[in-house]
């Protein structure tokens, strides 16, 4: 009996010794599902089909970026296996695809799924499975909630923080403004409107009219005429590109010349200003956090040079006028940075920890001075923007980099 026990202890201690020694050898190498010595599996969900299919370009740019990383030897020798599925912008489909990524493909994390409805649908599932839902492609404010959802993080500035920047600007530059607002009747428009009203605070009475439109409306001309009739002298257009261009054009036609602010999502030279006509677009204000691929002022910028070289080699069919390409590049670069920071500790917990410890990181495509900062209590990577004015055929940045940080 005694000897048996001794034997057992001996065996047990050998096992422990073995585990600890091999553990020492593996001390730097820790893996969760989806990561090995050879590769890291990253999942992604994009609307390649359906009403938001224009954003599918983001997924393609990201795939091209990870191809580039793999061609250059991967991250610390590990190749990125980027698995991207189509959800057609439908929340139930997004749930199905997220479950497929986590349970069937066994990815390490889900990166940059697009759309507020789709992300809302998978947030609870991913958090209960403790799978990182990193750098979601939506500007809703609710992604910055590390207390309730410690596995979810946004990337771009939230709509509310952008709206607050305009509110700040207006209160300073035009305190007696009479504001007319046109907004899209969905999560984007409403979130934005809230930010604007919060930003104006006691001055919210300066808003003399608000009109909403549905994305299914063929034209928004009627709304514009109605807004003009209120006698407003400031027009804030919380619109997506197609409607932003229509609004600019209509304003030109009916010769209404208010102070015109368009939201950042529509501040694209290629898809908004040019189709609306440069002559109608002069003096329009907006704010940006990323460089515009169509803007010649960045031709000699070292970051953008890297970006153009990347496009030429890995994604030649991309339209560099498309803001989604710039977006996809920047967010993929942030992802690569986080994985690099993880080193050999590729657990899901460490991925979140590293994502929450980005310090002054500046992807190539962000404006000079805009930096990514996160912490355990701050899950909003980009919070800075700079105001800009449209002049000639391009945007001219002016003023300081402003932080739209939400103080809540």
């Amino acid at each position, binding site marked *: 009996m005694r000897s048996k026990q001794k034997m057992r202890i001996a065996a047990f201690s050998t096992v422990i010794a073995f585990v600890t020694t091999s553990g020492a050898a593996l001390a730097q190498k820790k893996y969760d599902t989806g990561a090995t010595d050879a590769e890291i599996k990253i999942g992604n969900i994009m609307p*390649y089909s359906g009403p938001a299919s224009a954003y599918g370009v983001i997924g393609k740019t990201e795939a091209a970026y990870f191809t580039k990383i793999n061609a250059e030897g991967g991250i610390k020798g590990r190749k990125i296996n980027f698995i*991207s599925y189509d959800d057609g912008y*439908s*929340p139930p489909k997004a749930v199905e695809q997220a479950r497929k990524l986590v*349970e069937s493909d066994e990815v390490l994390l889900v990166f940059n799924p697009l759309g507020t409805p789709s992300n*809302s649908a998978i947030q*609870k599932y991913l958090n209960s499975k403790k799978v990182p839902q990193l750098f979601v492609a939506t500007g809703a404010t609710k992604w910055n909630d590390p207390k309730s959802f410690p596995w979810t993080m946004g990337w771009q500035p939230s709509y509310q923080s952008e709206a607050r920047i305009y509110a700040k600007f207006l209160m300073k530059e035009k305190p007696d403004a009479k504001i007319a607002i046109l907004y899209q*009747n969905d999560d984007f428009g409403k979130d934005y409107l809230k930010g604007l009203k919060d930003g104006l605070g006691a001055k919210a009475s300066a808003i003399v009219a608000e009109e909403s439109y549905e994305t*299914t409306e063929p034209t928004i001309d009627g709304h514009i005429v109605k807004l003009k009739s209120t006698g407003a002298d400031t027009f804030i257009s919380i619109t997506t590109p197609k409607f932003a261009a229509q609004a600019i054009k209509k304003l030109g036609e009916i010769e209404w010349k208010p102070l015109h602010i368009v939201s950042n999502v529509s501040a694209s030279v290629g898809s908004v200003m040019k189709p609306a006509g440069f002559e109608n677009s002069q003096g329009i204000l907006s704010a940006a956090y990323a460089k515009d691929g169509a803007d010649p002022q960045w031709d000699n910028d070292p970051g953008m040079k890297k970006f153009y070289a990347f496009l030429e080699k890995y994604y030649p069919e991309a339209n560099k006028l498309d803001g989604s390409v710039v977006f996809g590049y920047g967010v993929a670069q942030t992802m690569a940075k986080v994985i690099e920071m993880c080193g050999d500790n590729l657990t899901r917990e460490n991925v979140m920890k590293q994502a929450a410890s980005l310090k002054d990181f500046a992807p190539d495509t962000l404006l000079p001075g805009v930096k990514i900062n996160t912490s355990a209590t701050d899950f909003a990577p980009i919070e800075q923007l700079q105001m800009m004015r449209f002049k000639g055929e391009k945007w001219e940045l002016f003023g300081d980099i402003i932080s739209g940080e939400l103080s809540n």
Partner: protein
Amino acid sequence: MSAVQEVVTPAAIEAVPKRAMTLGYGTSLIMLALLLLVPLFVKNFIIFQLTMLLIYGLAVLALNILTGGSGQFSLGQSAFYAVGAYTSAILMEHAGMNYALTLPVAGLICFGFGFLFGQPALRLSGVYLALATFALATAMPQLLKLGYFEHWTGGVQGLVVTKPDAPFGLPISQDMWLYYFTLVITIAIYIFSVNLLQSRSGRALMAIRDNEIAASAMGVDVALYKTLAFGVSAGITGIAGGLGAIAVQFVAPDAYTITLAISLFLGMVVGGVGWLPGSIVGSAFIIFVPNIAEGISKGLSGAVFGVLLFLVIFLVPHGARQVAIVAQQLMGKLKRN
């Protein structure tokens, strides 16, 4: 239905509508065994997909009763599905009701909704009815976004639903429990539907489908049965919607667009109009074929899906029913040999 179709269809199929509506005894048992046993051997993700298969199957079945049974078209099933989903979600999240109890409520509300909608629809038939229901489907997502209801519906942000655990401490996963829960409901509704179509009311519905004037001459209350068909169909769709909300754990207006209605319609055609067991085949088509299409080409997934759909319609215009009949004939030949 129409004269043209009758020419195309071998007379034997249309002549025995009662038998053609169901499966043979043996086949039913095999199907049941498969549905019961498969989940025990697969991953949770597949179980989830199978649950969705049953749920969409129910919705397709509901449409099948309406179109295959009473001959009325509907492109508005997504609206009933949405009402059912929201009813369940709101009752669970705001009223704290048990998920199982929300389903009959969802079914009843949708039955009422469908019955009421059936009243004006009486004046319409064929493509005009399809258009009227289409209007319902396009209006629904926007109605759900309306500010007045936002307190309950969560507006554009939708509502997150808590997934139920298995009761009585059963040692099975949430997914598996939900699957068997859905399976029991599906089988119950399937049996109900088969019996409904074989009953007096079912015969009345089919008489209306085949010839409205003749039916009313025989003493069938055309208006009542047509609206009833709408009500029953909407009620079943509502239950499917409620189950869908629980399985997906989320409801949002954008989940219930016209695309869903068209998918269900597609499922019905692929499964075979008027053949109830085909509903599950149609449901499998709308769930799995888009995934296959995506696997073939990401950029052209829509086009690949279109080609696959075209092939199905071209090769087997009567869907799964046609395949089943051919299989049955082959079996018969083998037996004789």
